[in-house]
């Protein structure tokens, strides 16, 4: 029966979809003798049962209310829903039938019954009679829709009054306590001091306290002891790592590109920028602005450019044959999503295909937002360290010195150079750039054409490849072809090639010609001449030797390699050409490399190139580097000193007698240090048009839009430019009702396990009501504006605006935070999920912290901050699921083996297993809320994973050496290292019993003792009997696996 009904509804929808006429067939004829539909009797109950939940006074989704006549007739975000007398045209009918590709209403519930739909249809067709008095019941609520709370700028709320005024330490507590008192609950007593210091250390630095720190704190009985501790921890450099990692979740930071190829990327300088920003307590408005538009700030510093890596953290698909534009668009969609979640708590991406279902974001508003981000190029820039900068300057100074000496010794040089220049200028011939080339590559490589007609391959960079460029020319008697290899800031090291060093190899250059009228009649030309401005070891001829295993190499060595290069190829005899035009087909074979072990350095394929033709006699490659050539076109008198130097720098290499000096200069250049690189954005020279994508499909562009922010939020700052910087300022604007709330909410979540708004990524109309709305607003205002009065003098302290450290301090100083986490039955009954915070939560620590605790307890941890990501041990075979064979994991040596979890190389397609299992986010997309699971795989990891076993071995050795004279003392020491507290008698005895049993087990088993106690069999622990150490290793392993060890209580 149910099934029949369903079928009927489907049939009904199909029939209606065709004509939007519900045939007055069986259903309605049965009730032929029907009476007129009565609103109160027939319609209102349907609305009440099915619609008011979302379209009533409480929620008014899509700004539609059906409970009040005037508002119902006015309609919602999509316009009128009821057109009296015309059910066909009434949106209400379309929506309850699920027509027009929109979600059927009522959303997420059973569809209306056919009889109900029929009632609605008749009601509308009969004129949608809705007697005025029927508005009576809710008439008093008939006011303009109140704006959703999150879209109204927060103002500082009054502190609520509480009965127990002694408990509250700061305003936070007033809000918490007032709610508890309302529910008849009492807060928990303050946790003991050893719990508090461990909690604070884990929360503020992500590390457990050392025993010395615990002892100092326990011994400090001064009233300021707690506050001093808080301040010390906030000032610790580990604070920046801990909270930097918190931000990196939202920033979806990872060390690879994702998707099938999942190539490594270097963007760790962004990660380090985040850590430094937290440690410096960079005002959060500035922190936000720099990440979105640091490059556009006046006189942007390198650091501010690095910050835009936030945008570049999107994944990038480089699978063979992808359409580069498709994944450029997907990258932008991801950026909108990340900004929406991280800064605005807005699921703006829901408006990618259609107007947002619940929030007032229109379809075109999504693309207006997107338009801000659609104007960029995506360079990879060098980030030299101070030492590297110094070394580079030294090299340049050394070379300048050599040159100065040449100039000093040869007073006739200016004269000789002028003569040379005159001759050099005569060398020039005219070149016609090949236009409208049809270019394809093998292995599905696809190209982007730039404004200067040069071509850049995007997507996969296969081990071997051939680029084909085909175009028509009307030139006759073509005497030469010029191939320019051009640098570009989107290429590695600036190119012009695609290898990790930006280098390229060209194995063969061939040309075919055909009459345009007979495009199948290809004739291969004989290329007899090849010259280049630079060819390593005179290799240019190898590009026309017919042997694909030998190539023209443009690598001029360190410091000199990443420059524009060019080659000129000449046919044996000029290409006469055909009347009606000639088709030319160029092939650029790049087949020498072929991959293999060196593949991880990426194939040296051409990154950006341009082909030109000439008819001038005997063309050859301009021996001048393009930059020197450009300077020559400037009249000598107008050149800067640097430009004159640049010309001389090239000129001297052409003078045979300077061979020695030239060699000395080149040798100096060989020491050029290569700096790390990072990914940033920078505006493209010509703006890109943004169009609405119909139904979100990038292949269906609709109307053009200009950059703009959603109209339901605060206005765009009138003095802000309509670019990313303007967007950034709009986000950080104090009138923004969302940002400050969203940030403090996520901070709160980190401390209490759940946020005040449980969906930190969604503050929209569908989010659950905050548990403590006034507290959220109070915190947001405190964070955004400044302290008022609490510091005593009431003075406005600009430094504390947008200060995250200050917000942290406020929270951890509260009595709410300091409560014990012990669960009391009565509060469990009243508040099972602890939303009201009658106790502190017990939280299993995050994935990275699980690792850090083990390393810290065992003494292995190395506290080096920043730098390239590291490769701690990984289980054998874990990388086998990776698509690319080159995905090897070379375990780091030395201190990098023991770095904090946050520095672990994050490979998106194969995330580091022991952290992934503890819910570290994949970084596929912005994550503002980690899950906290509890699974057997976690148990296996901390029990058996090699890194954790090594921690156990090291902890055992540490306990043995440092823990005191007897077993009791040692056991207490080890227990404290892991949990931060002394064991009670039961715990102590239980552990000692385990120790004794293991001592028996190892007594006669030297082999097992050696294996269990030693991470490296070639380097056994010295100064200790391994028979003694092995049982302690088993005990240490148990200590590291205690629930309490990996839990913040």
């Amino acid at each position, binding site marked *: 029966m149910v099934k029949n009904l369903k079928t009927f509804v489907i049939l009904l929808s199909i029939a209606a979809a065709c004509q939007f006429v519900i045939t007055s067939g069986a259903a309605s004829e049965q009730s032929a003798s029907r009476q007129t539909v009565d609103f109160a009797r027939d319609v209102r109950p349907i609305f009440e049962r099915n619609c008011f939940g979302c379209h009533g006074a409480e929620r008014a989704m899509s700004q539609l209310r059906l409970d009040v006549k005037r508002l119902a007739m006015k309609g919602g975000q999509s316009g009128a829903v009821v057109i009296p007398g015309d059910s066909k045209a009434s949106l209400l009918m379309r929506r309850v039938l699920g027509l027009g590709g929109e979600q059927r209403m009522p959303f997420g519930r059973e569809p209306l019954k056919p009889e109900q739909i029929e009632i609605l249809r008749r009601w509308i067709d009969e004129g949608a009679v809705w007697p005025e008095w029927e508005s009576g019941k809710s008439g008093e609520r008939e006011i303009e829709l109140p704006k959703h709370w999150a879209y109204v700028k927060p103002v500082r709320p009054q502190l609520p009054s509480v009965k127990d005024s002694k408990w509250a330490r700061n305003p936070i507590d007033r809000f918490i306590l007032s709610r508890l008192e309302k529910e008849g609950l009492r807060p928990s007593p303050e946790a003991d001091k050893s719990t508090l210091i461990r909690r604070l250390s884990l929360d503020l630095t992500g590390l457990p306290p050392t025993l010395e720190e615990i002892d100092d704190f326990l011994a400090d009985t001064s009233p300021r002891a707690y506050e001093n501790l808080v301040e010390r921890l906030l000032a610790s450099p580990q604070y920046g790592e801990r909270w930097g990692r918190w931000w990196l979740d939202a920033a979806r930071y990872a060390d690879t590109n994702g998707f099938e190829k999942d190539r490594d990327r270097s963007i760790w300088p962004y990660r380090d920028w985040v850590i430094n920003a937290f440690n410096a307590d960079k005002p959060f408005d500035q922190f936000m602005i720099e990440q979105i538009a640091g490059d556009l700030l006046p006189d942007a510093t390198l650091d501010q450019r690095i910050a835009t890596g936030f945008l570049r953290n999107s994944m990038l698909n480089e699978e063979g044959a992808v359409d580069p534009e498709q994944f450029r668009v997907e990258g932008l969609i991801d950026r909108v999503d990340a900004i929406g979640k991280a800064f605005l708590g807005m699921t703006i991406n829901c408006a990618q295909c259609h107007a947002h279902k619940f929030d007032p974001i229109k379809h075109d508003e999504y693309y207006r937002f997107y338009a801000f981000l659609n104007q960029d190029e995506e360079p990879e820039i060098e980030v030299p360290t101070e030492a590297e900068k110094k070394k580079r300057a030294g090299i340049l100074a050394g070379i300048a010195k050599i040159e100065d000496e040449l100039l000093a010794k040869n007073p006739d040089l200016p004269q000789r150079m002028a003569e040379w220049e005159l001759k050099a200028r005569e060398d020039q011939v005219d070149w016609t750039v090949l236009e409208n080339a049809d270019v394809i590559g093998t292995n*599905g490589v696809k190209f982007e054409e730039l404004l200067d007609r040069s071509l850049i391959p995007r997507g996969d960079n296969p081990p071997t490849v051939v680029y084909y460029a085909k175009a028509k020319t009307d030139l006759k008697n073509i005497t030469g072809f010029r191939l320019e290899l051009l640098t570009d800031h989107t290429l590695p090291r600036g190119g012009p090639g695609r290898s990790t060093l930006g280098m390229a190899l060209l194995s063969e250059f061939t040309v075919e010609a055909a009459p345009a009228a007979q495009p199948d009649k290809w004739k291969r030309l004989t290329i007899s001449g090849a010259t280049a401005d630079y060819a390593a070891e005179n290799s240019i001829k190898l590009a026309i030797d017919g042997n694909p295993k030998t190539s023209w190499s443009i690598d001029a060595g360190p410091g000199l390699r990443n420059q524009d290069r060019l080659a000129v190829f000449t046919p044996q005899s000029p290409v006469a050409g055909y009347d009606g035009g000639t088709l030319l087909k160029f092939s650029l074979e790049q087949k020498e490399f072929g991959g293999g072990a060196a593949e991880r350095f990426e194939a040296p394929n051409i990154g950006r190139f341009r082909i030109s033709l000439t008819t001038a006699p005997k063309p050859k490659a301009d021996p001048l580097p393009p930059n020197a050539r450009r300077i020559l076109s400037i009249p000598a008198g107008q050149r800067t000193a640097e430009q004159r130097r640049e010309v001389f720098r090239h000129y001297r290499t052409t003078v045979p007698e300077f061979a020695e000096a030239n060699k000395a200069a080149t040798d100096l250049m060989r020491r050029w240090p290569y700096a790390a690189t990072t990914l940033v954005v920078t505006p493209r020279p010509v703006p890109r048009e943004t169009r609405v994508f119909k139904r979100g499909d990038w292949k269906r562009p609709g109307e053009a839009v200009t950059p703009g922010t959603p109209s339901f939020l605060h206005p765009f700052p009138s003095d802000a430019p309509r670019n990313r910087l303007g967007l950034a300022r709009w986000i950080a604007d104090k009138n923004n009702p969302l940002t400050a709330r969203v940030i403090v909410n996520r901070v709160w979540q980190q401390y209490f396990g759940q946020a005040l708004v449980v969906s930190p990524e969604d503050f929209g109309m569908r989010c659950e009501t905050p548990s403590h709305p006034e507290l959220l607003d109070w915190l947001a205002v405190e964070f955004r504006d400044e302290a008022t009065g609490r510091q005593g003098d009431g003075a406005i302290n600009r430094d504390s605006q947008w200060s995250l450290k200050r917000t942290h301090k406020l929270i951890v100083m509260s009595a709410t935070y300091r409560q014990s*986490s012990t669960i009391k039955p009565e509060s469990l009954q009243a508040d099972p999920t602890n939303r009201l915070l009658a106790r502190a939560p017990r939280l299993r620590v995050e994935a990275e912290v699980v690792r850090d605790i083990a390393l810290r307890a065992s003494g292995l941890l190395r506290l080096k901050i920043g730098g390239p990501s590291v490769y701690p041990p990984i289980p054998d075979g874990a990388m086998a699921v990776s698509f690319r064979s080159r995905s090897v994991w070379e375990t780091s040596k030395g201190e990098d083996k023991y770095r904090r979890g946050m520095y672990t190389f994050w490979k998106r397609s194969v995330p580091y297993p022991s952290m992934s299992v503890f819910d570290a986010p994949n970084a596929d997309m912005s994550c503002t809320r980690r899950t906290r699971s509890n699974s057997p795989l976690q148990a296996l990891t901390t029990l058996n994973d090699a890194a954790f076993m090594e921690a156990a071995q090291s902890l055992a050795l540490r306990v043995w050496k440092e823990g005191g004279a007897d077993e009791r003392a040692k056991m207490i020491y080890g227990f404290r290292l892991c949990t931060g507290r002394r064991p009670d008698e039961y715990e102590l005895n239980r552990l000692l019993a385990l120790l004794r049993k293991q001592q028996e087990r190892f007594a006669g088993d030297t082999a097992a003792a050696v294996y269990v106690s030693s991470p490296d069999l070639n380097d056994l622990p010295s100064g200790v009997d391994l028979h003694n150490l092995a049982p302690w290793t088993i005990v240490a392993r148990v200590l590291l696996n205690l629930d309490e060890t990996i839990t913040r209580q």
Partner: protein
Amino acid sequence: MNHENEIKTEAKKMVTRRHFFKDCGIGLSSMALASLLSEAASANPQSTSKGTSKGRNPQLNDPLAPKKPHFAPKAKRVIYLFQAGAPSQLEMFDYKPGLAKYNGKPCPPELLKGQTLAFIKPDAALFATEFKFAKHGQSGAEMSEALAHLPKVADQITIIKSMMTDAINHAPAQIFMQTGSMQFGRPSFGSWVTYGLGSEARDLPAFVVLSSAGGTSGGSSLWGSGFLPTVFQGVAFRRGGDPILSLANPRGVSREMQRDSLDALKDLNEHLLERAGDAEIATRINSFEMAYRMQESAPDLMDLSKETKATLELYGAEPGKNTYANNCMLARRLVERGVRFVQLYHEAWDHHGQVHKGVKEQCKETDQANTALLLDLKQRGLLDDTIVIWGGEFGRTPMVQGEPDGSNALGRDHHNKAFTMWLAGGGFKPGITIGETDELGFNVAQDPVHVHDLHATILHLLGFDHTKLTYRFQGRDFRLTDVHGVVVDKALA
């Protein structure tokens, strides 16, 4: 169905019960603990049995406890044989005499209008298969000679020749096939199923991933849990050695030492539980016990040498190797032990060149084992309530692909408009072929089945209304089928 509240309620019940004992002065007696941790107390962790739910304790805060779906299911578990790289339907199932007729001619432009092609150019010529086709079984299912074994079970499978998908690149298409979305970050099919049904495996993960041949384009997101809790994510078994990462004890740690350690851990964690009163501690105790049981039972699971010679020969399995055949056999052993969802990946079908040779080779690798799996499941009475899925992420073009430099000729490019999958068991109607493609095999001509429809159908057989198996995230109820999906009634027995 939304289990979040259920899980919360369970947690609450559990803890209040614990407090009941405590408050009544009984303390956390061994009796109470035994009830809390019935598994931990189980005397014989080796014993396993199919279809029993006593393996898990639903009382505990265990999101993987077996759950009832929306209505009585036809199938209880799934084995998904994912032929990654995308096998050519035109070489195996979709016989197109039309292609032979137009072999070498350019594809009609009207077919290509609006079609995205990955590698080839729109002027690529049509390309007829070299394989001969024949009809098999009473159903007359068409298969090519590349398939030597599958014809034996032609009457037991449901062939869908009219599959369609949205993506034409491997990673997005694999992600789409496994999560119903091209964007990363959604829960995988297996995660949805384990979220909905829990697991009956007492000492193995609920959702297991096996792979042979190359690594997958989609990476570990293919079995990720997306925004669902991490416990629902697939566990990728290793190809060699121990199947699960960190399954073996560290060198020198004996089974006894491990047990001693876990006993101590249990005592100490129980002691803490009594003081702190946090249900999470009980869950952790249980996790450690289950970890131990995994350690105990996995070697037995992986030991294919215990199979009879006849069975090994049926599959063509060779103990000790990482082959597709071994994985098929392992899949059966896993479902026998209550694993809910077994996903095989065989990433070897991306035949841009030499598709004839490639399909022939891969059929040799897989055909016998696929057939054996069906026969074996049937013979053990498991096929009736186990769904077996075979297929890739998309199909291949009727047009030929060769590189512009002439290398790698006679292949086929990616094609999303029509491809073939087959299904068996678990309520699928055996011995029928659904859907047809046009004369050239380019578009679906009849009964289109979109990936979302396939998902809806499989969920239906598992007892779910696919529109109601949801999870609230970012203010929206998400589901495997997004906002699409129609159950393919024709495919149902």
